[in-house]
């Protein structure tokens, strides 16, 4: 029979002893393995992209009002 109280106490004790540095180092090694050894320890950085307003600075085309009197014949004449 599993002693759940003993198991929980063990887990709580583990959390008490773990620091941000030790846990981050463990997780980086777990996720990136040897690459982390090569690059050195760092911290987790949010990789959420921000929406780039790619088209926000593009000016709207400046259309002029159509000249209803303009005909292809006028164009040719010009």
């Amino acid at each position, binding site marked *: *029979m*599993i*002693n*759940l109280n*003993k*198991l*929980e106490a*063990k*887990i709580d004790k*583990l*959390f008490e002893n*773990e*620091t*941000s540095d030790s*846990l*981050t180092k*463990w*997780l980086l090694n*777990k996720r990136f393995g040897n690459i982390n050894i090569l690059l050195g320890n760092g*911290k*987790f950085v*949010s990789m959420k992209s921000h929406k780039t307003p790619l088209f926000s600075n593009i000016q709207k085309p400046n259309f002029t009002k159509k000249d209803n009197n303009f005909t292809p014949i006028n164009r040719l004449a010009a």
Partner: protein
Amino acid sequence: MTFYHTQENRYNELEEPILCDKDNAWLGEAYYFWGNEDDAVFWGVKFKRKTGKYDIYKAEINTDEILDTVFNREQYFFWIKQIEKAAKFFVKKTGTKPTLKEINDFFHERNVWTDIDGILFQDISENPIHFMVKEFQYKKRIQLALYNDKKIVTFALHYTGEV
């Protein structure tokens, strides 16, 4: 208790299960078994296709010291509490959410899980033959992640299927 272990048929009959250390193994490095034979067959047909055949091994396993998150109410709520506690702790200390595998690996490597032989857990089956009623999957897909292979009482080839 009876469990099933699915592997590709590679013409050599296994004498013991293969340890799974894949990144997507939910509960970390362990011997994984299915609780239902039809889930073992479905896994073989869907994911063990390389050689055209799959083997299903049948095992009797002593589950006295298995954390039973499927049928034991007390152990299920204990499990939920510890996983959520660990997840919050990881976020607080590292600023990132852990996976279930990472939590279990962490418990393993820090010798927390040495008091248990494995974890019985469940998710929802994708097996179409389980969808016998409309709109709700009522059948659990039960798996055992066994950490202590000494708890395997018997292990033998049960069935070879073709994909």
